[in-house]
C-alpha cells in the first residue's frame, strides 16, 4: 500500500514533530487536535523546526514554505475519507486511545492503516474495540522525532503482516529506519536500555562510585553519546521510573532501579526539565 496522504492525531510534543517529518518527505499530512491552543503551538513548533533547517542551509526558504504548506492543521475529521494512514499521538491513556481510534475508524476507508505512537501500552489492548483490529500497528517514534531516526513498528496479537509491511515501507519513505518488533512490555529499545541503566545503578552502589565519574567513563568509552545519568535526566527521572516499574512488573527484579531515583523524585528533582536531577541545570 502506498501512502498518498497521512494524518496525525494530537499536536503535542510527539505529534507535531511526526507531522513535520512526514511533510519534509513531501507527503500531505493532516494534523488534528481537539484543543485550538495546542494546535497553534504544534504548528509554531513545526515552523521552528523548518526555520532551523533553513538557517543551517539544509533547505531553501522556498522549499521550507512548500513543505510547511503540506501540514493541514484542523480540529475536525474533514478530509479523512482519503487518508491512507492515521498515526495516533494523543496522551498515554488507554481509554482515550481506544476512543480516539474508534472515532477515526468511522472516518477513514476500509483499507487505511492505523498506527499508535504509544510508548508502553499494549497495541493489542488499544485495538481491542476496533472493528478491524488487524490494521492497527504500533509506530513508536523516539523523542525528538525530527532528529531520531528509529521507528519501532510493533505487531499486536491481531495485527496482519501486510499492515506491518506497509508500515515499514511508509517509515522508510519518510527517511526513517523501521524495525519489526513483536509486542512485549517496553518494546525493544526502552526494554534493553533500561536493563543497562538498572545494572549501572547497582554497580554505582556496589562499587561506591559517583554518577559524574560513571558518565565520564561511559562517554570516554564511546559506547554511548552520553552517560546513563545524563540520559536519565534528559528523559525525565519520573518517566524513567515509570518505564522501569512497568518493566519490573513484567520481567522481575533485574529492572529494579533501587531507591536512588525515587529519592530524587521525592525531592522534586525530576531531571533537566525541573532544573535538577542527578545534575543541576541552569537557564
Amino acid at each position, binding site marked *: 500500500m502506498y501512502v498518498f496522504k497521512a494524518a496525525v492525531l494530537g499536536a503535542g510534543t510527539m505529534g507535531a514533530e511526526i507531522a513535520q517529518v512526514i511533510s519534509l518527505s513531501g507527503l500531505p499530512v493532516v494534523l488534528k487536535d481537539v484543543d485550538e491552543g495546542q494546535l497553534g503551538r504544534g504548528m509554531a513548533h513545526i515552523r521552528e523546526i523548518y526555520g532551523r533547517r533553513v538557517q543551517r542551509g539544509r533547505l531553501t526558504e522556498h522549499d521550507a514554505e512548500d513543505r510547511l504548506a503540506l501540514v493541514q492543521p484542523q480540529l475536525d475529521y474533514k478530509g479523512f475519507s482519503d487518508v491512507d494512514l492515521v498515526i495516533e499521538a494523543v496522551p498515554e491513556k488507554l481509554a482515550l486511545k481506544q476512543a480516539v481510534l474508534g472515532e477515526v475508524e468511522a472516518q477513514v476507508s476500509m483499507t487505511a492503516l492505523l498506527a499508535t505512537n504509544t510508548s508502553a501500552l499494549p497495541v493489542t489492548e488499544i485495538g481491542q474495540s476496533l472493528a478491524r483490529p488487524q490494521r492497527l500497528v504500533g509506530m513508536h517514534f523516539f523523542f525528538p522525532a525530527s532528529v531520531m*531516526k528509529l521507528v519501532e513498528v510493533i505487531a499486536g496479537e491481531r495485527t496482519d503482516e501486510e499492515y506491518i509491511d506497509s508500515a515499514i515501507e511508509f517509515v522508510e519513505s519518510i527517511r526513517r529506519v523501521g*524495525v519489526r518488533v513483536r509486542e512485549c512490555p517496553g518494546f*525493544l*529499545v526502552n*526494554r534493553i536500555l533500561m536493563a*543497562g541503566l538498572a545494572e549501572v545503578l547497582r554497580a554505582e552502589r556496589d562499587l561506591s562510585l559517583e554518577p559524574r565519574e560513571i558518565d565520564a567513563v*561511559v562517554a570516554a568509552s564511546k559506547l*554511548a553519546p552520553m552517560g546513563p545519568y545524563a540520559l536519565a535526566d534528559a528523559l525525565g527521572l519520573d518517566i524513567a521510573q515509570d518505564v522501569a516499574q512497568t518493566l519490573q512488573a513484567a520481567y522481575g527484579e533485574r529492572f529494579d532501579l533501587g531507591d536512588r531515583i525515587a529519592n530524587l523524585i521525592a525531592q522534586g528533582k525530576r531531571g533537566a526539565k525541573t532544573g535538577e536531577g542527578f545534575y543541576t541545570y541552569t537557564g
Partner: protein
Amino acid sequence: MTKDQETELLDRFNLAVFLEAVRCLDENVSTAREIDIAMRAGAGLSEGPLGRADKVGLDKVLARLEELEARWGDRFHPPERLRALVASGRTGVAAGRGFLEY
C-alpha cells in the same frame, strides 16, 4: 575510579544490555540484525549489543558471564543460546558466524 572498577562497570552495563537483547531474541521479539539496528538508531549506542558480543568473541563473553554469575547471581546466568553458539564453534566475528553472519 580504578581500572578494575572501570572494567567491572562497563562489563556489567554491556552484559546487562546484551542479556536483555538475547532474551528479546529468545522471545522472538525481533531479529538479531534488527535488535542491533534499533539500539544504534534508537539508543545511540556505538555498536549493537549482539554485534559487539560477536566482536569480543562469544567464548570470552560466556566466560565473563560465568564469573559475573558466580559473583552477582542469577541475573548474569549465561543464556542457552550463547552456550549453543559457542559449543558449535560459532564464536563470533573471528569464526565468521555468531549471532550475526560475517
